[in-house]
C-alpha cells in the first residue's frame, strides 16, 4: 500500500503494534491457506487420479531405460562395432557378462521388450540365459551352441533400435510405422498395417455417432423443454430409464433385436418386406457399432441441450412472430442460435466418450466395427505391450485436444453450457 500519508515517519502500525503491511499479509496468507484447504480434496483427487496416471502413461510410452540398465556392456560393445564385420568375441563376452550379472526377472522383462524390436529375441535370450552358468570361453562358439540363431547378424543389428533410453518407437508403431536397424522411420509391411485404418475408423465412427445423436436428440430435447410438465416428466423418464440401465443389458437387447435371426429381421421377413435369404446385416459389423453407440450416448446429448432450451423464454419466439417472422424463420433465426451452447456441450461430451469406446465395439463390432480402444485394451490385457498401449492413449488424448481446439476456434469454449 503506497497510499500511506506522507506525514507519518516509519511504517504504519495496527492497533497491536504490528506493521500494517505485515498484518495484512498475514491475514491474506491465512485466507489463502483456507482457500487452498477448501480446494484440497478436488485438487488431490485430480493429482492422484488424473495427473499421476496420465504422467505415468506419457512416461511409459517413451521409456526404454530398463533394457539399457540390464545390458550396459552389450550396448557399449554394440556402439563400438562397425555393423559390417561379423560380431566379435568381445561382443559375445559383453552379452555374457550382462546376462550373468542381471536379475532373472529383469532378463525376462528385457527379452519381452527386445522381442518388440525383432521377433525371436525373447526365446533367444531366455534360452541363452538358462545355459549361461555353464558357459566357458570362447563365448561366440558357446552362444551358437546354445542357440544357432546367434549367427544371425540381424539380431545384433536390431540392438540399434533400443540403444537410447528414450524411444518414440511406440508412437511410430501406433501409426503403422517402425524403425529400421539404423533408426530411420519406415512403413511396416503392407500386410501388417492395422492401426491407421483403425484411427480413421475411430474418428469416423465418433463423428457419425455425434451427428446421429445430435439429429435424434434435438427434437427430443425440444419436446422435453416445451411440452406441459406432466407429459415432459414422463418423456424425461423415458430418456433416463435406458441411461440408468446396465450397459451390457442394453447391448444384449440390441443383439437380440438386430441380429440375423433377430426380432427386426424376423418381423421384416414375416411381413414379406425382406426375402428370407436376404436378411439385413445390422449386427457384428460397422452398422452395429454405430447403432448401439448412438443409442447408448444419446442421453449425453439430450440432457445438455434440454437444460439450455429450458432457459430460453418462450416469449422470445412469440416476439419474433409478432415482428413478422414465420414460425420456421423464428425457430431458425431466434431459437436455434440460443441453443448452440447446449449443442456444443452435447457434441463435445458425446465425441469424447465415443472416441475412447471399446466395450460396445468389442461386443457388436464384429471384424469391421472395432475401434482403436479395442487395440488399447488388447495391448493392456493380452499382449502386455503397455508402451504401445500408452502411446495410443496419448495420441487419443491429443486427438481430443485438437478437436477441442477446433471447437474453441469455431464456437468458443466460453459459449459452452453443461447445464
Amino acid at each position: 500500500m503506497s497510499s500511506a500519508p506522507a506525514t507519518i515517519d516509519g511504517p504504519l502500525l495496527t492497533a497491536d503494534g504490528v506493521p500494517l503491511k505485515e498484518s495484512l499479509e498475514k491475514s491474506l496468507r491465512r485466507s489463502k491457506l483456507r482457500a487452498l484447504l477448501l480446494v484440497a480434496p478436488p485438487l488431490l483427487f485430480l493429482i492422484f487420479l488424473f495427473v499421476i496416471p496420465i504422467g505415468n502413461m506419457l512416461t511409459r510410452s517413451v521409456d526404454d531405460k530398463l533394457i539399457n540398465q540390464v545390458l550396459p556392456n552389450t550396448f557399449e560393445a554394440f556402439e563400438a562395432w562397425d555393423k559390417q564385420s561379423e560380431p566379435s568375441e568381445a561382443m559375445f563376452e559383453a552379452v555374457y557378462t550382462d546376462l550373468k550379472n542381471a536379475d532373472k526377472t529383469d532378463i525376462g522383462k528385457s527379452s519381452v521388450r527386445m522381442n518388440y524390436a525383432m521377433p525371436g529375441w525373447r526365446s533367444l535370450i531366455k534360452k541363452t540365459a538358462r545355459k549361461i552358468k555353464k558357459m566357458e570361453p570362447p563365448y561366440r562358439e558357446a552362444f551358437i551352441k546354445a542357440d544357432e540363431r546367434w549367427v544371425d547378424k540381424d539380431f545384433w543389428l536390431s540392438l540399434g533400435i533400443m540403444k537410447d533410453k528414450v524411444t518414440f518407437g511406440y508412437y511410430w508403431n501406433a501409426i503403422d510405422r517402425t524403425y529400421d536397424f539404423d533408426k530411420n522411420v519406415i512403413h511396416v509391411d503392407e500386410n501388417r498395417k492395422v492401426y491407421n485404418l483403425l484411427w480413421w475408423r475411430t474418428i469416423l465412427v465418433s463423428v457419425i455417432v455425434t451427428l446421429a445423436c445430435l439429429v435424434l436428440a434435438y427434437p427430443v430435447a425440444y419436446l422435453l423443454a416445451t411440452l406441459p410438465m406432466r407429459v415432459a416428466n414422463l418423456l424425461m423418464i423415458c430418456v433416463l430409464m435406458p441411461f440408468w440401465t446396465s450397459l451390457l443389458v442394453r447391448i444384449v437387447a440390441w443383439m437380440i433385436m438386430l441380429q440375423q435371426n433377430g426380432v427386426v429381421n424376423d418381423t421384416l421377413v414375416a411381413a414379406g418386406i425382406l426375402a428370407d435369404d436376404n436378411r439385413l446385416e445390422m449386427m457384428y459389423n460397422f452398422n452395429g457399432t454405430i447403432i448401439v453407440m448412438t443409442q447408448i450416448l444419446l442421453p449425453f446429448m439430450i440432457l445438455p441441450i434440454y437444460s439450455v432450451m429450458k432457459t430460453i423464454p418462450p416469449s422470445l419466439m412469440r416476439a419474433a412472430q409478432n415482428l413478422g417472422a414465420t414460425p420456421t424463420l423464428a425457430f431458425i433465426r431466434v431459437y436455434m442460435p440460443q441453443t448452440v451452447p447446449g449443442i456444443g456441450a452435447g457434441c463435445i461430451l458425446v465425441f469424447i466418450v465415443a472416441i475412447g469406446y471399446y466395450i460396445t465395439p468389442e461386443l457388436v463390432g464384429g471384424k469391421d466395427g472395432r475401434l482403436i480402444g479395442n487395440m488399447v485394451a488388447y495391448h493392456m490385457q493380452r499382449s502386455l505391450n503397455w508402451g504401445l498401449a500408452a502411446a495410443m492413449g496419448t495420441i487419443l488424448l491429443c486427438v481430443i485436444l485438437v478437436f477441442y481446439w477446433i471447437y474453441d476456434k469455431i464456437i468458443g469454449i466460453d459459449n459452452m453450457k453443461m447445464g
Partner: protein
Amino acid sequence: MKVILKHTLLASVVAVSAAAQAAEVNVVSWGGAYTASQQKAYQETYKDPDSINFINYNGGLGEVRTQVESGNVTWDIVDVLPSEARVGCDEGLFEELDRSAFMPAPDGTSMDDDIMVELPNDCVVPQIFWSYVPFYQEGTFSGAQPTTIADFFNVKKFPGKRGIHTWPNALIEMALLADGVAIKDVYKVMSTPEGIDRAFKMLDKIKDHAVFWSSGAKPLELVQSGEVAMSLAYNGRIGAAVLSEGAKFVTVWDGQVLEEEWLVMMKGAPNKEAAMDFLIHASSTASQAEQAKYINYGPMRASAFDIMAKGEPWFHNGKNIMEHMPNRPEVMARSVVASPDWWADYGDSVSERYTAWMGQ
C-alpha cells in the same frame, strides 16, 4: 456419539476381517462349466471347501501385472494359458514353487515327470489340455463326410460357411497342416516368412466364407442354427453339448491344436501357504481324474488319464468320456501341441497381420 461410532467401526472391521478369513484363497479362473468342474473336483473334495473362493476373469496378464506392480495383490491362484504361464514367470509375476511338495503319481513317479508335456518353468502346476478342433452337425453334408483338416479348408468339396476365431492362434498351424506340412515340421515352417505367407494363402481360400467368432459359445450357436456348415471350437464346448445336451455334433479329430492350461500362484499372494496347500490338492492324480467327470478337457497328468481310461464310463452322467478327450493317444498322433514359445516370439507380428487380413 463418538463411542457408538467407534463401536460400529470396530464391529465393521471385525466383520470384514471375518469375511476375509472365511474366503482365504482367491482362485481366479474362466467361469462357466470350466470353473464349475474345478469347484466340483478340487473345492468340494478339499478338506476345507469354504476357504476357497472362485473369481472369474477374462484371461490375459493385464490385471496380474497391475496387482503385482502396485503391490496390492488380492488374488492367490490364477488359471492361465500356456503363453501367459511363460511370460508371467519370466517377468516375475508368479511365485516359483517348491516342486518336491507336490504329490507323486500312485506308482511313485514325481509330478513333474507325470506331466505329458515338458515342464516350462517352476511356476506352473498342471491343469488340463484343451484344443481348437473343427466340427459340424450331423446331416450337414450328404455323401462323403469331412474327416481331415484339409476338408475344413476345402469349400469346393464341402460347401458352406466356416466359423473361425478372431485371433490367429491355431489357425496358422491348421492352415499349414491342411497345406500338407507334416506335424513335426509345423513350427519350423512357421518360423520362416514364407511359411507364414503359405498359411495366409490357405486362409484366403476360406476368407469369403468365414464367419468370425470371439466367445466360446458362439461357434456352437453358428453350427446349430446352420449359419455355418463347419466351425472351429474349443473341444470342451463341443463335448459338453454332446455329453450333457445330446447335441448331434461330429468332431473332426484331425489337425487339432492342443493347448496347455496351468495354475500359477501370484507373486506376493496374500495367503501363500493356504494357496500352496490347495495347489497340492488340486494337482493330485485323484483331483485331476475327478475333474474329467464334469468336463471333457484332458488331464495333464498321465496317471490321471490311466484312472479315467480304466474307470469308463467316467462322465458323471454315465457316458463314456474317452472319445471326447483331446489328448487320447490315437488323436495325439494327429494333433499339433501348440508351441507357446513360438507364439510368445512371433505372436504379436502374426496377430497384426491376421487383424489386417480380417479387415481387408
